[in-house]
């Protein structure tokens, strides 16, 4: 509980907060009105936990003031109405901005990605697909055309031979290197907090932690830009996680336009919760999935209250992004597919197999990624982030170029894998030895024995699987923006496509197997490898993140067919169970623990039967709890106390003998009040008595003028008895958002429990190092 706290009245803050801080400062006369006190004493220090109860109370008081005022004049009424609507207005703005940012990132990243291969000289701002969009010489549904020039072609070499291959190879690697170097350089110089995925930190922030600048404007800009660069560098990472971070930065930015949210950390988190829903919504084109993600993974204190508003925000963001139409397919994501083929009951077996694969991959990835991250954190290697990024980029580019499935953007790869072979597909993956009637009206998809193209593709995909699976371990955690939704999905999709094609060939060659029931009888096509890829992607993502409902809904929204929910659910469920068998935590929770953030998981059940007395400080043998007597201490004594002890706050008792609890006073309030009283020079001296009571001895008493500090006393601290089971205590901390709780026995104050004590206790019981919990 001995955490460090500086005594500066208000701490350094984001620049945009300045005007508020100023106005805040000018009206700080803490001895005047308790409401003022409540309203203004709201700032927290960096790396501290907020007090939800206090902030919510502050908001209630503010609301009361406004509604009282709004009866006075017409202008105040308008202000009151604006205040009432500001939540909706704010999420509207956040949604619009999130959609816009996602559009910019999508267009920019897909353009830059293709820059590694070539350029569209007549309209350099178009990527390969858009360059060939209107090209009349397209004969098949393919992406190459005469308008698009590879770099070697641009240099005038139009024959294809080893030389041009090597030239293109070198240019590819060079572009990749320069993109990633610029990215890591920008992050390091301008906004170091812009690196990583951001989701573990967002989870922690929404659970009530303060990381100053993490959601700042610079983080927003740098993360948006470097996200594009990192994706374009061909690294094994995605932009989906970082998009959630960017959306939260946007939420933070707009919340400052509305004092209701900008000046109240607890209320601000309502906006952030909606913003994270918008982030997922634009990242996957899944508004409902976004809301469920926000609910399941991110939101903490108010799961249901903000649901409707989050949904609105997510929809607005999706609508804006759709209007921008970044991929020209009127969908929000590159890899949107719409299946219509049914699935059969026997296919649940391979789907569950995919789930097992996903769970195993998740456990494998989490374990080794964590090991690598811990290695980076603890050893000297972490001191060379730029070199690390350069090496990983170099290796990635070097290994990725030869394989057509790793050379292209991972989104395109996933799209390719998800898509079912249509009658006009001529890619390797659809090269079946099949003759089919030209009756396009009942469009039969190609089906038959796998041709050489498919066999080649299988090998290349297998190599891609291994490459992606391993590279991601080293990529996630590097000092560039890096999400792992896309690489995980890619790994799963490759595995799914492999298994799917296998099952398909099995069904083709042995259509009468008992397993295939009558679904495949008569040589009918009964297996859709694209669906397997989708299920595999869900399974791998589920194994890594251990998301459940939100993942299923996101995948469902990606396909748009309710009938595929059951396969996806079967795979995700298996994957979660298999993954949990090897390690309970999803990657985000694991990173939260690795960093020691004070995150009290709202979903985990506490299974032990310890009681409050086991956790509370002071422990047996410790010096007694530092308390303040309500009417028996002088200014000097208190000042000494503040200097000697660095606790966050002090309980106030009737007297040290009885230990009957009166209230709780926060360190920063107390020290501020003492300073003010000293400065005011109205007779308060070192041996003035400090009274936390209503009744103060009048002037007939001898001695110096007393100091009344009752206004700053929190008269309703949360108390529990020493016999309270820990699960109840934890439930209180989680659900009520407490920072600390006082422990009593038969009415007498015994000790105190803080959030950090609880986190350490949980860590100890889980056989982890309790000292890993760093902040608070």
């Amino acid at each position: 509980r001995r955490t460090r706290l500086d005594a500066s009245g208000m701490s350094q803050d984001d620049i945009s907060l300045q005007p508020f801080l100023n106005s805040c400062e000018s009206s700080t006369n803490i001895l005047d009105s308790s409401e003022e006190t409540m309203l203004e004493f709201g700032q927290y220090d960096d790396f501290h936990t907020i007090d939800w109860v206090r902030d919510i109370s502050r908001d209630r008081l503010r609301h009361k003031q406004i509604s009282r005022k709004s009866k006075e004049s017409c202008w105040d009424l308008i202000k009151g109405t604006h205040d009432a609507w500001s939540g909706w207005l704010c999420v509207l703005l956040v949604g619009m901005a999130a959609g816009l940012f996602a559009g910019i990132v999508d267009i920019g990243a897909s353009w830059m990605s293709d820059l590694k291969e070539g350029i569209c000289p007549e309209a350099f701002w178009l990527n390969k697909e858009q360059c060939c969009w209107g090209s009349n010489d397209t004969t098949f549904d393919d992406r190459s055309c005469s308008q698009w020039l590879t770099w070697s072609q641009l240099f005038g070499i139009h024959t294809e031979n080893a030389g041009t291959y090597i030239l293109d190879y070198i240019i590819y690697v060079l572009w990749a290197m320069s993109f990633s170097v610029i990215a890591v350089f920008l992050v390091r110089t301008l906004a170091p907090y812009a690196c990583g995925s951001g989701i573990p930190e967002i989870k922690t922030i929404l659970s009530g932690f303060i990381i100053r600048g993490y959601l700042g404007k610079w983080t927003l800009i740098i993360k948006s830009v470097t996200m594009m660069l990192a994706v374009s560098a061909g690294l094994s990472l995605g932009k989906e996680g970082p998009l959630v971070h960017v959306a939260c930065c946007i939420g933070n930015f707009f919340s400052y336009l509305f004092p209701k949210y900008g000046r109240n950390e607890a209320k601000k988190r309502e906006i952030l919760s909606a913003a994270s829903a918008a982030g997922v919504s634009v990242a996957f084109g899944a508004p409902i999935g976004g809301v469920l993600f926000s609910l399941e993974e991110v939101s903490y204190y108010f799961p249901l209250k903000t649901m409707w508003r989050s949904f609105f925000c997510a929809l607005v963001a999706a609508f804006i992004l759709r209007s921008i139409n970044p991929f020209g397919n009127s969908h929000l994501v590159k890899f949107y597919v719409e299946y219509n083929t049914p699935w059969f009951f026997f296919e649940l077996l391979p789907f569950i197999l995919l789930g097992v694969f996903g769970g195993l991959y998740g456990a494998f990835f989490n374990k080794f990624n964590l090991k690598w991250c811990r290695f980076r954190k603890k050893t000297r290697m972490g001191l060379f982030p730029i070199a690390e990024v350069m090496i990983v980029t170099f290796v990635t580019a070097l290994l990725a170029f030869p394989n057509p499935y790793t050379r292209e953007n991972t989104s395109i790869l996933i799209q390719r894998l998800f898509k079912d072979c249509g009658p006009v597909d001529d890619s390797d993956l659809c090269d079946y030895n099949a003759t089919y009637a030209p009756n396009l009206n009942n469009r039969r998809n190609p089906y038959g024995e796998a041709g050489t193209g498919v066999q080649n593709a299988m090998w290349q995909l297998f190599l891609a699987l291994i490459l992606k699976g391993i590279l991601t371990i080293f990529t996630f955690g590097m000092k560039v923006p890096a999400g792992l939704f896309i690489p995980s999905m890619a790994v799963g999709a490759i595995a799914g496509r492999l298994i799917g094609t296998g099952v398909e060939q099995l069904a083709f060659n042995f259509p009468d197997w008992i397993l295939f029931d009558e679904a495949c009888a008569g040589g009918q096509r009964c297996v859709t490898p694209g669906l397997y890829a989708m299920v595999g992607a869900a399974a791998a993502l589920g194994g890594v993140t251990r998301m459940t409902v939100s993942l299923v809904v996101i995948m469902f929204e990606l396909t748009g067919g309710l009938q595929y929910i059951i396969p996806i659910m079967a795979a995700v469920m298996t994957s979660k169970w298999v993954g949990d068998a090897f390690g309970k935590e999803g990657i985000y929770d694991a990173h939260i623990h690795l960093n020691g953030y004070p995150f009290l998981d709202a979903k985990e059940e506490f299974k032990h039967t310890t009681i409050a007395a086991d956790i509370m400080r002071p422990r047996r043998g410790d010096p007694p709890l530092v308390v303040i007597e309500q009417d028996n201490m002088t200014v000097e004594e208190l000042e000494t106390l503040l200097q000697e002890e660095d606790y966050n706050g002090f309980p106030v008792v009737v007297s040290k003998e009885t230990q009957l609890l009166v209230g709780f006073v926060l360190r920063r309030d107390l020290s501020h009040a003492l300073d003010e009283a000293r400065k005011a020079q109205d007779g308060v001296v070192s041996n003035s008595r400090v009274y936390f009571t209503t009744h103060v001895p009048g002037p007939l008493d001898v001695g110096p003028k007393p100091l009344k500090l009752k206004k700053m006393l929190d008269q309703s601290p949360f108390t529990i008895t020493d016999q309270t089971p820990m699960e109840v205590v934890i439930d209180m901390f989680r659900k009520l958002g407490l920072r600390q709780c006082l422990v009593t026995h038969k009415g007498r104050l015994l000790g105190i429990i803080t959030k950090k004590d609880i986190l350490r206790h949980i860590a100890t019981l889980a056989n982890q190092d309790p000292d890993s919990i760093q902040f608070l």
Partner: protein
Amino acid sequence: EGQYDDRRCKCVCPPRVINNVTRKVYLKNNIARDDCECGKVVDPLPDNPVEFCLRCECEYESRNTMLMKVLVLFVLAVLGVLVVYAGFVMCLEPLCAKPQQPTFPDSGPRHAQDDRPHLVRSASMLGRVDSARQRWKKQVEVQRVNVYDRRNILS
């Protein structure tokens, strides 16, 4: 030549050999939504147009190249400015300013207590901007220490 137009009609038809090339896809740019029909898109129509066209599937698609152009140029501009500014911050400033080593003696994150006085004192616009920049720089410094040196957040 209408190569980069914003509207097209795309018909996917049964494969057909034209000029020694098997053709399945027919595109026509800059066409009204209503005219997106096989008969108006497939240029050399075969002999049995009705039967052929019944087997085609035409789709009208639109995009916004202008927006793409603007956004890509915007991204390039922002990227350029940021790189230049970062270069300035990284290379030039340490040379101009007096050497100022980052000092974080204690283990807790450091707070810049001396910020507000600055702000209050410098009433002029320029001073304000400058002080804001100073504060931002300190903040970035704190971030850098947390992330790269002490490595206690953002594993």
